[in-house]
């Protein structure tokens, strides 16, 4: 196949996808044209079918992880509790109190807490208040990309029962419907001191072997997914973002 032919083919396919995109938009399917199932031409000229949403990720369901035996698990739990690495994703207004927490005045580093820029390196997620549906979608993706065992801290009224946005069309009311939460901290917003107390509680839980919410998520995966899909209308992502 000559280069010219390939270009023609590309053009043809582009037109086709553009048509599809047009018709799809009117039906409100919310899948971006670039994410649609389509055919692409490999450098050698062969045609490959791709489905960008599912091909690039594992759609496999999460599985429960059994704890190790006795002393080993205890040691692991101690290690986990002393190295809480928080994903640096401030989802709501509560994140304004995270810089004071991480800077010298309250210095959370001395308790083994630090922020990480990517979910792949973190094991704790601070949901700092309200979650709009648009952010919830990103939060779910980030949460699912975090390695197990992972923990969720929920800050403020908003995560418990909607807080002051209880009647907003855009924010969720109860976080526990969509993600398993380990520790709730009351306040609007909680002070850094209260946040630290929350971390201490989380450490306690982990040491006692009760920080098993990731397994709970795996166990009740279908239920969580159903709730998530009910409100995220444009589900243009794989079911599990691992």
């Amino acid at each position, binding site marked *: 196949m000559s280069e010219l032919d390939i270009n023609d083919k590309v053009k043809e396919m582009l037109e086709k996808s553009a048509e599809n995109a047009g018709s799809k938009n009117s039906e409100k399917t919310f899948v971006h044209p670039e994410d649609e199932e389509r055919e692409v031409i490999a450098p050698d000229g062969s045609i490959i079918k791709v489905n960008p949403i599912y091909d690039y990720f594992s759609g496999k369901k999460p599985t429960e992880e059994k704890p190790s035996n006795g002393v080993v698990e205890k040691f692991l739990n101690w290690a986990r509790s002393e190295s809480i690495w928080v994903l640096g994703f401030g989802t709501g207004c509560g994140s304004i109190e995270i810089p004071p927490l991480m800077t*010298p005045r309250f210095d959370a580093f001395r308790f083994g807490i630090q922020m990480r820029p990517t979910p792949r390196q973190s094991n704790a997620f601070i949901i700092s208040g309200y979650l709009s549906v648009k952010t919830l979608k990103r939060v779910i993706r980030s949460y699912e990309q975090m390695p197990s065992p992972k923990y969720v801290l929920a800050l403020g*009224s908003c995560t418990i029962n909607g807080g002051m946005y209880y009647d907003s069309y855009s924010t969720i009311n109860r976080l*526990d419907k969509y993600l398993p939460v380990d520790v709730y901290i009351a306040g609007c917003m909680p002070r850094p001191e209260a946040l630290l107390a929350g971390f201490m509680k989380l450490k306690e839980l982990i040491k006692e072997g009760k920080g098993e919410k990731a397994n709970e998520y795996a166990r009740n995966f279908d239920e969580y997914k159903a709730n998530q899909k009910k409100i995220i209308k444009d589900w243009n992502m794989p079911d599990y973002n691992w």
Partner: protein
Amino acid sequence: MNIKDVFTPFTTWSKVVKDPVTIKNPIGREAAPRYRGFHKNDIDVCIGCGTCEAICENQAIDLVPVEGIETKSGDSGLRPRIDYGRCCWCALCVDICTTNSLNLTNEYTWVDTDPDAFIFTPGVDKKSWDTKEEGWKKPVPNYHFYGQTRVPMEELHAEERVESFVEFVKGYSKKQAEEEADRCVACGICTATCPAHMGIPDYIAAIRNEDMEEGMRILYDTNPLPEICGRICTHKCEDVCSVGVNGDPLSIRWLKRYIADQIPADVDKYNEILYTKDIKNNNKKVAIIGTGPSSLSSAYYLSLLGYKITMYEKLPQAGGMMRYGIPEYRLPYDAIDKDIDYIVSLGVDIKYNVTVGKDITLEQLHEENDAVFAGTGLHLGRSTRIPGSDHENVYQSVDLLRDIVTGAEVPVERKVVVIGGGNVAMDITRSMARLQKAKYGEVNIITTSLESEDIMPADREEVVEAREEGCTIIPGYGPQEVMIENGKVVGLRVWKCLSIFDENHNFNPKFDESDERVFEGDMVIESIGQGMDLSYLSEDTKKGLEFGPRGRVQTNDNFQTSLPWLFMGGDIIQGPDVIHGIANGHRAAMAIDDFLNQGR
């Protein structure tokens, strides 16, 4: 850019030798004294008015019944329960709290694994911060979410009002009424205390909405005498008003009067507003003895249901005690007429100058009608029975008050002594003051009561106003003897009263005999209470009735006597005051309707 720019940043290294600013143990660090932390509530002070719930923009507060807190007059028995899944700690609930019982402490740490745990009733569910003193309190000074002071009522000046029997309370203007109505927090605590359970917050809201016709409809739901009640009601509602806990209570009575005053005295207009133009007759008849508040009230509500009402009045005009017992300066006759004219316009027939028991018997009434309601009131004066009280110059206040109204000649002496501390005593005191002023140009009245100043049953403002008008009021003395010299009354000998009731709460006054005083007077007026005249009940009828303590006829909750066709209400059963009478009449009317429709 030069070489300096490369090295200057290194000056930051000087911080290396500085002490760190890190807080050693930050968890649980004390917050500022004004910090808005978690709620606490003094549940003994709280009255459950629900303003906190009303102002919460997050619907975080629920009012829930609490064990150990009783629902009673002035306390709903509910307490706020707060959902920390909603709260935003704005403390508006603290700022509006009518009793100042709700506060925020400066505690702020609450961590839990269970999301359902963040809901609690402060003061009831014990929390670690209940004992904390510091935290957000209502700011001072002059920071109020609703008006604290009552809009003053314009009145005639004391010198002016003692000149005549003209009504001295001017009534609110539109602006004043709206300003006063604006102070209401619409909690509804007052409704339970009002004997007639009037929809007080609703008609106050009608004033705010400038909808007098709607206000009138709300008034007539429970009270067919708003002009009268708006002037002379004992306003028990104002005693429990939640705005009054810290500040002046709302002038509920004056606001009621304001609504009624706005509607012109025109029965057609009344009928139009209250939708009573044509009421279907149900061909049943009820006779009512007396035309006092309870009688008028039952007449009104029975008429609405289509009953044919005949009322029998001993005196030449309707109104009972309201007309013949309350002086004109407090309740002018046109206000009474305005209310009664409307009730008459519904087809109520009033037969004047007919005394039941003399001109017509109760049995006759029973035969002619399906049911009878008796609201004959307390028209007999009680005597102190002290030595000398049988003298002709010793009078009963009820008799004098009645005489003033009917125009009969009233004896007015230069010096008058009144015995009694109730509202009637004040009425006669102030009436006599006016008569004295007219006759002699000066006021010389001494009023004494057994009760001391702080427990006098008369309304506070009555006492104050009487004093303003020049009357001398000396409470706390018990009359011992009417002193008579040469066949003429010259004064009243009294002893200081130490206590009125004994430990069993029985009437048993104790006196300090060493503290004796003599109040000079040419006439003495007794005003220590009234008795009922049940002479219209024949012996046969009396046999069928049950009597309770102090000669009162026993009725059930619906004011039905043991003779099922006979209902009784008003001062002879409860009270005495107007609003109880109205409530009795309303209730009796509904019971009569039930009774007569049992076969239906």
